[in-house]
């Protein structure tokens, strides 16, 4: 598939962002039915349909160049978005190996990896990066291994150390998150960092998910989708930056919701890493404006129904409350009440 990489995008201040028709068609619309509730909706992360966001272990799309530039900007202003506790170095190398081998296999015209024992040579044609280094020797890379590769990957990455029958968030690169802080949560257990999420603990979802992940095996990654909404195509909606993006929520009206309101879908992937026994957690973020979403009639109608029926507690936690009504108003014109097909496909 030929991708037209956008080179002038901006995810902050003066926003420059749009999805091509191809990007809209492949958007991971998450709603199978007209209402939404939590579940441990985990499935094997195996190759999905050609051209879909699920085709490859790590997905590269037309926003790659822009997102890598955006990550560099975030890290320059706030280095605390990339942290690793000292015992996580093996997991960092695992991460680099996983991503380099995956990208080179999935996108051979864009990425190349040559390995001669521990002497590796990496070529990223999209960003114009060539790097020779010794695998396992941090001195031979310009950044620590996790930061090095994460500056060339779309989406966030969290490393969980597996010990005491639990998972500890002990490292990560988190610049495109939906309102949680790596700096604050670093060192927390799975249950602790999910603390603020309403309802999931009572439903037993967190315990079941943890038990499942403790048994995750190398070579058998899994994935799930999560969603929220963002005003403007802003990737960095961290708590740290809330003073800057919080006000956007008050600017949404029934007239401008089509342009301002974006559906934000996270493709979450989970990998067992072989050398460190750690779990790698990818959070790959996809944004689509309501205008763009409305070019797929079924999706607009379903989005309307999901937002209308969403429990208030969930809407509140996802930060939708202030503009939810305006978006529902805007979407209502696309919903004539007709039965919609089950599943997430555009038709």
């Amino acid at each position, binding site marked *: 598939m030929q991708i037209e990489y956008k080179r002038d995008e901006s995810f902050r201040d003066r926003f420059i962002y749009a999805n091509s028709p191809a990007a809209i068609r492949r958007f991971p619309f998450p709603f199978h039915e007209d209402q939404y509730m939590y579940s441990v909706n985990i499935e094997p992360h195996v190759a999905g349909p050609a051209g879909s966001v699920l085709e490859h272990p790590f997905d590269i799309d037309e926003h790659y160049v822009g997102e890598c530039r955006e990550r560099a900007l975030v890290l320059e202003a706030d280095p605390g978005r990339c942290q690793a506790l000292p015992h996580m170095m093996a997991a960092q190398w695992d991460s680099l190996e996983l991503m380099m081998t995956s990208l080179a296999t999935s996108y051979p015209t864009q990425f190349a990896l040559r390995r001669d024992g521990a002497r590796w040579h990496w070529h990223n044609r999209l960003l114009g990066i060539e790097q020779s280094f010794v695998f396992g020797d941090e001195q031979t890379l310009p950044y620590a291994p996790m930061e090095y590769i994460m500056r060339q990957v779309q989406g966030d990455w969290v490393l969980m150390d*597996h010990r005491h029958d639990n998972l500890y968030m002990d490292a990560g690169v988190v610049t495109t998150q939906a309102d949680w802080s790596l700096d604050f949560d670093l060192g927390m257990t799975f249950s602790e960092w999910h603390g603020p999420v309403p309802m999931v603990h009572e439903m037993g979802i967190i315990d079941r998910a943890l038990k499942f992940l403790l*048994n995750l095996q*190398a*070579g058998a990654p899994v994935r799930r989708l999560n969603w929220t909404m963002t005003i403007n195509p802003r990737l960095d909606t961290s708590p740290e930056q809330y003073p800057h993006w919080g006000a956007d929520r008050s600017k949404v009206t029934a007239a401008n919701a089509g342009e301002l309101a974006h559906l934000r879908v996270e493709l979450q992937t989970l990998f067992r890493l072989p*050398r*460190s*026994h750690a779990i790698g957690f990818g959070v790959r973020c996809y944004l689509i404006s309501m205008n763009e979403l409305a070019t797929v009639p079924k999706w607009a109608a379903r989005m309307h129904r999901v937002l209308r029926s969403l429990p208030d507690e969930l809407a509140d936690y996802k930060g939708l409350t202030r503009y939810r009504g305006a978006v529902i108003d805007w979407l209502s014109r696309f919903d004539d009440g007709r039965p919609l097909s089950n599943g997430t496909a555009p038709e």
Partner: protein
Amino acid sequence: MKAGQGIPVRVAEIEAVTPLIRRFTFEHADGGALPCFSGGSHIVVEMQGAGRVHRNPYSLMSAPDETRYYQIGVRRVDEGRGGSRFMHEHVRKGTVLRISAPVNLFPLVRTRRKHILLAGGIGITPFFAHIVELRRLGVDFELHYAVRDASHAGLANDLRDLAGDRLHLYLEDRGQMIDMGTVLRGQPLGTDVYVCGPAGMIEATRAAARAAGWADSHVHWEQFSAPPPGEPFDVELAHSGVRVHVAADISLLEAIEAAGIDAPSLCRGGVCGQCEIQVLELDGELQHNDHYLSPEERASGSKIMPCVSRARCRRLVLAL
């Protein structure tokens, strides 16, 4: 590991390192790289015996980042179910076997400042890989290795190369016994102990750690135990609509697999919980041999771990 899955390997080397232990070196049968792994991992080796399939777990002894070959150590057990005898008598250089991908149920805790490793006999095998990792981490450790006599210390030279004077060798025929209390006394805060060996050694270690005031989170063990044999019995698999006979010397899990039914499993030693099956009907009693179910779960009679547990019954129906 389901039938037909796993990695095909060819035996590249067999060494009789002690009178009872053979070290096998496996290379990928298709010439590719084997997956790297974390220290403490084991593989399940599938052996096509006469009339039965053996699936035995063995710790990986080779360096965790070595992808050209794996090494395992197999202690011959004459009175066992035949898996180790098969390895010793029927596996040659060039034999092709299927192995599972590595699984780790005995990892190092990476946040500790010191690790005490205690091994008895064949229990030394996982520590070979652990030591490579500990050396790379630059973390303090001690290895205490007990064998019955000098003729059984064949692996000690390789260990000496890896561990230097952190290795303490105990020859039991000379009265050299590991004094757990002494080993554990005075260790700095943030020390963990890992023990792999006979059940008695594990119990002694756990008791010594408790007596020394160590919390459970600092004590780790791996026990190689084969499923205990028992009286033969029959079982019905409700969802598969199949009736399976479990002979005296094969496990419930093995009987289910032999009948062609796909049953989840992982450690095959009663500790990880993966093979848990719901009991739908029971007329008789379950014989729980696992280390996973709680006392309440055992008493309820509603769950069984087929990799090691059995039943003495007139009727047993499982949700499989």
